[in-house]
């Protein structure tokens, strides 16, 4: 990876990873039972769908855009799959394929509007968020349960990683998506075009890069990721729910940015996003293990921890950069 990018750009990523290790180490000293394979496995399982949306979001942000529709598309995808499987007796794989197609198409349409008419991505995807959420409620205002032998079978898949701990199918899928995304970002033309587009659109255009298709592609990819995250969520909960993922877009954006990607585009790493999601997840787990904070102290604690780690990340970044 470092062959393709200057080393200095890896600093934020290393700082972020260090922060995660420090956070985890500290929590392990503080709370008995924290440093266990089970907690780590749960982290990967519980954050799988956030992780997958954050991957798509990374590409959007790298291209200099933003996508607020991910929560809505995720909810739409869960309820569509659940209704097709539960209400219409489809095979889950067929239902998931339809869900993925819808998500990709939806993203592509938003990308098209943004590209063709030079509309601000914030507004178009905000519209997309409302639209997808509304459609989800049109399909079914209530959550729909899924019971299908295929789901049971998939749920049994898992790699044991310790006592009472295994990486489940959805955790494995997330990790797989991360690897594919790293490959796409750094070893394909599409990935390089995304970085170029986010770095400087005019230069990218002058260099003859396919700016239009790349931008539409980025939003289509994110639509795909959101729908895939929706499919993962149906496995996670065994149901579809039109009100799921409210505010997910902010968590996803926060993970990407904590992971060291610049909101202005052109700079960042998919791997950083993985770490960003794990940091948010670990903060949540720490608070859960403490278990003594009431609702409002919990919010304050999340804020303070977030602040602490962002400051720490900046500090580490600066120290490392200074030593160089």
């Amino acid at each position, binding site marked *: 990876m470092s062959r393709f990018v200057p080393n200095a750009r890896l600093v934020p990523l290393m700082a972020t990873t260090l922060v995660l290790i420090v956070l985890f180490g500290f929590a392990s000293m503080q709370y008995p039972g924290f440093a266990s394979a089970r907690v780590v496995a749960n982290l990967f399982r519980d954050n799988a769908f956030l992780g997958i949306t954050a991957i798509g979001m990374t590409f959007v942000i790298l291209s200099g855009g933003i996508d607020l529709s991910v929560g809505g598309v995720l909810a739409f995808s869960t309820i569509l799959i659940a209704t097709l499987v539960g209400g219409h007796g489809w095979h889950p794989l067929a239902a998931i394929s339809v869900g993925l197609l819808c998500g990709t198409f939806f993203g592509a349409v938003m990308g098209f509007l943004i590209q063709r*008419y030079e509309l601000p991505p914030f507004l178009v995807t*905000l519209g997309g968020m*409302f639209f997808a959420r509304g459609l989800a409620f049109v399909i079914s205002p209530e959550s729909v349960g899924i019971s299908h032998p295929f789901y049971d079978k998939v749920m049994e898949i898992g790699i044991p990683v310790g006592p009472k701990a295994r990486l489940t199918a959805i955790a494995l899928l997330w990790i797989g998506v991360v690897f594919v995304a790293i490959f796409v970002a750094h070893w394909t033309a599409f990935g390089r075009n995304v970085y170029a587009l986010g770095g400087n659109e005019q230069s990218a255009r002058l260099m003859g890069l396919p700016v239009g298709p790349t931008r539409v592609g980025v939003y289509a990819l994110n639509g795909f990721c959101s729908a895939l995250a929706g499919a993962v969520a149906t496995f996670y909960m065994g149901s579809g729910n039109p009100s799921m993922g409210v505010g997910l877009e902010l968590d996803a954006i926060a993970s990407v*940015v904590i992971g060291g990607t610049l909101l202005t585009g052109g700079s960042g790493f998919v791997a950083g996003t993985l770490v960003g999601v794990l940091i948010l997840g670990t903060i949540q787990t720490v608070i859960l293990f403490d278990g003594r904070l009431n*609702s*409002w102290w919990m*919010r*304050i604690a999340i804020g303070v921890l977030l602040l602490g780690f*962002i*400051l720490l990340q900046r500090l580490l970044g600066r120290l490392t950069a200074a030593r160089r």
Partner: protein
Amino acid sequence: MKDWFAGGRVLYPLIGLGLLLMFDFFFVPNFFQFEVRDGRLFGTVIDILNQGSKVMLLAIGMTLVIATGGVDLSVGSLMAVAGAVAAVLVTRSDLPVPVVCGVALGAVLLLGAFNGVLVSLVGIQPIVATLILMVAGRGVAMLLTDGQIVTFENEALVYIGNGAFLGLPFTLTLVLAVWGGALLLTRRTALGLFIETVGDNETAARFCGVPNRLVKTGVYCFSAVCAGVAGLIAASNIKAADSSRVGEMMELDAIFAVVVGGTALTGGRFTMAGSVTGALLIQTLTTTMVSLNVSPAIIPVPKAVVIVAVCLLQSDKFRAEIGRVLGRKAMA
């Protein structure tokens, strides 16, 4: 580059608002009916202005933040803080209401300064810097009210969100005062230019001697105070501080209003009139849906359609395309 709002930056959201109002005129019963009672006007349009005051205020503050290339996600939570401080002080102390409001605004001003410092001095990306207070600020508000809804009857405080001034809701006076103040500061002094320069090109701004850190901290403080006033209005309007729910998702409405009004998220040139129009657009839309009794579950769909339609209206390319299509039809 920013040609999508070249020319009529305020014009197109205004056209959008006009079209929506025209729709209301034909399809919503009693929409333009006015009634004078106790020396003040009543009517749906007045309600829109009154309820829309919160988003208008947030949007005015947000405009300056966005003009510097930032964004403030904490405004909804800061509304909760201001409301909670005011409600707690007014019910548990004998302080006069102006002092109470002053303390509430002072508290959110401090929080705004915190946002500003994180962005300008520490150099954290605005979306994450303000995310911290978006989460924690509501916690602080709930801590103050012990997670309860604190109700109050104090007449002076209730006046802010319910009273009438010159026959119109007092909230309008507040909006105009804040807007006027901001206009004076940004258009009659070099401040507006500073803000636009910082948003356009920060490095260049620094070399030109613009105190960019001060400017950045300042806009977050201003945004926080706007949110504080909005929070006081929200609490006063229902005679209660609902710290766990007030202002939820309102940051998105405010950002929407600003962007639809013609200020680009990337920073640079800004127009507060556009933002205020955007805020009125979103409030009119909400009121229209409710008045027409659109099923709550599908309300988001027409909302999305209007958002995208207004966007397209602003797009030069789209208008040119439509023009071509219409022209061809006229020829045939």
